[in-house]
């Protein structure tokens, strides 16, 4: 018997209200500009997907309980209530039609951080029993098996063996005291095993001391996607424990935007303390190595390349220049999408949308915005630095019969490494 009740949900909503939320709701003038930044609204044309509207349950609780007028209205019984029916209706708006890309937060004229409030709203949705099945499944698998996709270390071990065979290098495992603990995402392990090979080669090339951890290899956090801090804290604690167990100085988040924001920004707050290590996304590390002259490349890609900035990295974490420095290293003919960097457009799969089978149609609809952007510059290939985005781009381009392959940047760099023997130095 599940204990998720409306009351518990309302308490969870309430617990999320802070100064910024109060300032944001106090300031909304219903201008509708946020809709113009939302791929889910723009590509469906349905005004119910207007971002600020997705926050109506949270707003009602704030208005009724956190304002003088709400208190007075409450005495007269005039406040609009948040009901179970309402939350059922809002489930689609808060989960299926929001990839938490944060573009609305960047364009709102009064400065409302709508994305942050969607994240907060999900706390209430989970506690009131209104989370989508797909995300519940991922969260349960993540906690129970260590991977939202149910991936086991033994599967990864098979990958490691392949990598070692093909590179002739050793993939370090459970090496205490090294500089970097490398985390992976299940999606990467399953869909893009070339990533592991790429970093093995690059780190060997640059002489980086790194390791994987058998204690915890999964970087993603299904608890954050579903929007529950209890589950999220369990998952992030595993990463922290693994890093502390090995005594590493740095933890590297894989080519996955979501995992990076989860560990880098939300993690310390979930466990209520700062880390004794630093967190980097793989492109940050690669760019540091590049700047230090530790990555030597030869030759350039000659076809027209363009790049998709993952929302979680560019807009939500400020990782914008790093990937450009790296691509300049290996691409002759690079072209930017018209709106890129912090103003990029979401692929449509973030924020748990890709784990939510029910949202398949909306996910594809939202992708059309990305598709239009890609069509505008007509690249031969797309480069990205997030496995979720990459999967969505591949599936979406396939769906629309567009023959544009998608590759990971790390992989691209690895392909151009100068062999150690040939290196002049």
């Amino acid at each position, binding site marked *: 018997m599940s204990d998720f009740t409306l009351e518990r949900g309302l308490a969870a909503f309430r617990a999320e*209200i*802070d*100064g*910024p*939320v*109060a*300032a*944001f709701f*106090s*300031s*909304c003038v*219903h*201008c*509708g*500009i946020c*809709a*113009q*930044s939302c791929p889910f*609204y*723009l590509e469906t044309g349905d*005004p*119910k997907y*207007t971002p*600020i*509207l997705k926050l109506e349950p949270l707003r009602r609780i704030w208005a009724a309980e*956190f*304002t*003088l*007028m709400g208190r007075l209205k409450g005495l007269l019984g005039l406040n609009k209530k948040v009901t179970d029916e309402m939350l059922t209706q809002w489930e689609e708006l808060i989960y299926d039609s929001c990839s938490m890309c944060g573009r609305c*937060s*960047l*364009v*709102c*004229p*009064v*400065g*409302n*951080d709508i994305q*942050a409030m969607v994240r907060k709203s999900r706390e209430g949705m989970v506690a009131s029993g209104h989370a989508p099945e797909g995300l519940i499944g991922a969260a349960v698998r993540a906690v129970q098996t260590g991977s939202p996709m149910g991936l086991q270390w033994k599967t990864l071990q098979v990958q490691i063996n392949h990598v070692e065979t093909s590179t002739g290098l050793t993939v370090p495992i459970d090496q205490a005291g090294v500089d970097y603990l490398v985390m992976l995402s299940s999606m990467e392990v399953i869909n893009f095993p070339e990533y592991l090979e790429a970093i093995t080669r690059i780190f060997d090339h640059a002489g980086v001391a790194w390791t994987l951890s058998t204690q915890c290899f999964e970087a993603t956090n299904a608890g954050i996607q579903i929007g529950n801090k209890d589950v999220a804290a369990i998952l992030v604690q595993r990463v922290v424990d693994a890093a502390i167990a090995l005594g590493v100085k740095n933890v590297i988040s894989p080519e996955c935007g979501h995992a990076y924001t989860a560990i*880098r*920004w*939300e*993690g*310390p*707050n979930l*466990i209520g*303390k*700062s*880390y004794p290590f*630093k*967190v980097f996304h793989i492109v940050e590390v690669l760019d540091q190595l590049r700047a230090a002259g530790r990555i030597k490349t030869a030759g350039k890609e000659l076809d027209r390349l363009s790049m998709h900035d993952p929302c979680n990295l*560019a*807009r*939500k*974490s*400020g*990782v914008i220049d790093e990937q450009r420095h790296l691509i300049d290293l290996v691409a002759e003919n690079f072209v930017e999408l018209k*709106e890129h960097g*912090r*103003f990029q457009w979401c692929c449509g799969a973030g924020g748990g949308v890709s784990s939510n089978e029910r949202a398949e149609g909306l996910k594809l609809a939202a992708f059309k915005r990305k598709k239009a952007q890609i069509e505008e510059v007509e690249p031969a290939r797309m480069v990205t630095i997030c496995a979720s985005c990459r999967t969505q781009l591949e599936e979406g381009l396939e769906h629309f019969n567009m023959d544009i392959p998608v590759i990971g940047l790390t992989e691209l760099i690895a392909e151009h490494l100068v062999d150690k023997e040939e290196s002049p130095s």
Partner: protein
Amino acid sequence: MIDPMDFLLLTKGPLFTLAIGICALGLAARLLEILVMGRKHNYSEPRAGEWLPGLRTVLSRTIADPGTIKRAPFNVVVGWLWHLGFIVTLLFFIPHIALIKSLLGLSWPGLPNPAVDLITAVTLVALVATLVHRLTHPVKRRISTVEDYLLWAVVFLVALSGYLAYNRIVTPYPLALGLHILCAEVLLIVLPFTKLTHIFTAFIARWYNGASFGRRGVQS
């Protein structure tokens, strides 16, 4: 029939005191509602500070990004136009400056009256355009509440009554001026309890937004 001079003195005297008192009370309440809530300590390691990016966003959100301008030019331009017109008229019409000086002791140069007159006319047209937009654009229709329309009327009447008084279209003048002051008082009274609070809280909201993005190394 209402005595125009009695009416003017009522609006300039007790009603103004009442309106500004309610406004001060309500506004202080609203600001405290926000500030008392505060923020939880953030344990993540910042990339940059919060104060400067926050202040930057306070300013930068005034101008929409190029993409938004392209996608919603009407919304952006008309919204911007009437806000600017309203603020310029409020802050740079000589009689308003005299009023502000009497309340706050601060004063600055004003604009020639015909310039303010023209700006007010543009503001009125822009306000009508925003109403039409609100009534016709699917998103705006969907998210608009009764409050949105009522407040539109309040803001419009403030500008319209001012325009009529300045141009002496309504006579006698004490009646026209009294009506304008009354409209402004209605605005002052509802300001703290409606979305008009954004006149003040938008800057707090922008700061929080800029600070949050800024500490993550993103210009917002």
